[in-house]
């Protein structure tokens, strides 16, 4: 198992390097001079040149690339061009909020999605199945900012069950949890919609396998067939999908954080975008990609834990 983990770790290095390169290129190759974009059209040539020098844009692109790689690999993401604080400090303050939100959404998604998927599979083509399918399509069709605002209107503005502003008081756990509910449900709906579909089709496939028929023929109780023989095997693809969709969750967490006015990476990236904070954006992309690579790694490893064939 340890060998398997090490191999996966090594295999993710080229991906990470490639992603870093892409990030570097995205910011550099895109037309337009960042210095003009930051300072505006009316900046004097002197101030532009000074800013270019400060950003290192006046040097050979290869040198910039190597420097960027070296810094990124050491965890040094530079200084924000707007706040003049270290990019990593800004990100590390926001990151825990986003991780909590994403994890909560994942849990909600699985808690709703897996049982619903199994249920739908057991009633294939029945009313329950059709209803689940429609609901999951509906869930997929909601852009999170729309579902978030709708939830906000109903539960915060009309029913006054939850606060409108989601900024938790530091150190107050109850308050934090209370303010997490709506955002986590908003994001969890997306996850649940994906998980339902995968669980259903995976469960249907497993239930058609020979060993399920054998178990049935042996007289294994139905409950045991479904949960022990069926679900444990059906979950393997679900795990991969959960891992895959973490990327989608992370993207959607930006919108959720804006709607509920929660602190997190979403707020940081949007302010960086509107203020054209290039170093910040670059750092954000590195962090996002790093998160995705880590999640993929965890997915692969948990896959290995669930499915003994992967370890070899």
């Amino acid at each position: 198992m340890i060998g398997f983990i090490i191999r996966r770790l090594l295999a993710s290095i080229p991906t990470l390097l490639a992603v870093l390169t892409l990030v570097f290129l995205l910011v550099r190759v895109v037309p337009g001079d960042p210095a003009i974009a930051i300072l505006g059209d009316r900046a004097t040539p002197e101030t532009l040149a000074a800013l270019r020098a400060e950003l290192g844009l006046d040097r050979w692109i290869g040198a910039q690339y190597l420097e960027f790689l070296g810094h990124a690999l050491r965890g040094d993401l530079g200084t924000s061009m707007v706040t003049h604080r270290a990019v990593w400090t800004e990100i590390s303050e926001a990151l825990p909020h986003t991780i909590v939100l994403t994890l909560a959404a994942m849990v909600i998604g699985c808690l709703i999605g897996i049982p619903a998927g199994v249920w739908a599979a057991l009633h294939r083509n029945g009313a329950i199945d059709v209803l689940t399918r429609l609901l999951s399509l509906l869930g997929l069709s909601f852009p999170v900012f729309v579902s978030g605002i709708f939830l906000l209107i109903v539960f915060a503005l009309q029913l006054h069950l939850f606060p409108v502003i989601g900024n938790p008081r530091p150190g107050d756990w109850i308050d934090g949890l209370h303010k997490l509910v709506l955002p986590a449900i908003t994001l969890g709906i997306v996850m649940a919609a994906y998980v339902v579909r995968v669980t259903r089709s995976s469960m249907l496939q497993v239930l058609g396998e020979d060993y399920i028929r054998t178990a049935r023929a042996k007289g294994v109780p139905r409950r045991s067939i479904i949960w022990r023989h069926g679900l444990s095997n059906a979950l393997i693809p679900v795990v991969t999908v959960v891992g895959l969709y973490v990327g989608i969750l992370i993207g959607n967490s930006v919108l959720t954080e804006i709607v509920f006015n929660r602190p997190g990476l979403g707020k940081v990236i949007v302010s960086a975008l509107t203020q054209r904070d290039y170093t910040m954006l670059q750092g954000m992309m590195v962090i996002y990609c790093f998160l995705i690579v880590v999640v993929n790694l965890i997915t692969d490893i948990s896959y290995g834990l669930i499915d003994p064939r992967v370890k070899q």
Partner: protein
Amino acid sequence: MTDVAVSAPPSPRRAMIGRLLSDPTTVAGVVLCSIVLAGALLAPWLSPHDPLEQNILDRLAGPGSDYLLGTDQFGRDVLSRLLWGARVSLLVSFLSIASAVVIGGAIGMISGYIGGRFDLVTMQVMDVLLSFPSLILGMIMVALLGSSITNLVIAIALTAIAPFARIARAPVLVLKERAFIEAGRALGFSHLRILLVHVLPNIVTDLLVMGTLWMATAVRTEASLSFIGLGVKPPTPTWGGMMRDGFENILDSAWLCIWPGLAILVLVLGLNLVGDGLCDVTDPKATQ
């Protein structure tokens, strides 16, 4: 499974459409999409007001006889803005997915057909693109390029190229092992002819089905970008932009958020229903 998909006899188109229309959820999807399409096409005639005309006296008016769905904070008619906003949504999502289908499809097809090291490297690049959260990639692209319809199309297309390359490549790997491709080479057909005449028609259905589903994603992405303020610049009406305006006034006029939200939902749901129905009809596993 892919092999079955390729070798299955091409079911007559009429039978396929018949099966498609026998599924009530697909029909519902077609109806939803048609409503939005009609609204967008007929916007100049259906709109009761000029979508840009400001009536400060009537600002934030509730739904009523003058303004069927009310007005926004500048006193602009919401219904007219919804109808015109449909144009942006449809145009951006269609153009971006059409380009992603063409570019991604070509990359996947050529990569799979050539194979070997070229294929390996291309697909590695596609995987890196795939590992980027697409919404964030889109946000950054638009922020860097500047917001215009063209740049939105480029940004959203970029997020969808990698999936289409994957979708196109998989069946090509199976197809190119089949003897009729080799027969084409033996008969002296050019690679271009083989790709366009013999490979493409066999994968075009997959691409179109996924295109419908991805158009739903593109509508969501466009709306999300507009909501963040990275969409087509105001005052051009967009659904995401209307949500943004409404969100700023959510405490006193919540309906400003509800109408564009429902409009987005109708279009995305419609596209998803149609795409899902198409998937079922074209997937040989589902028909057995």
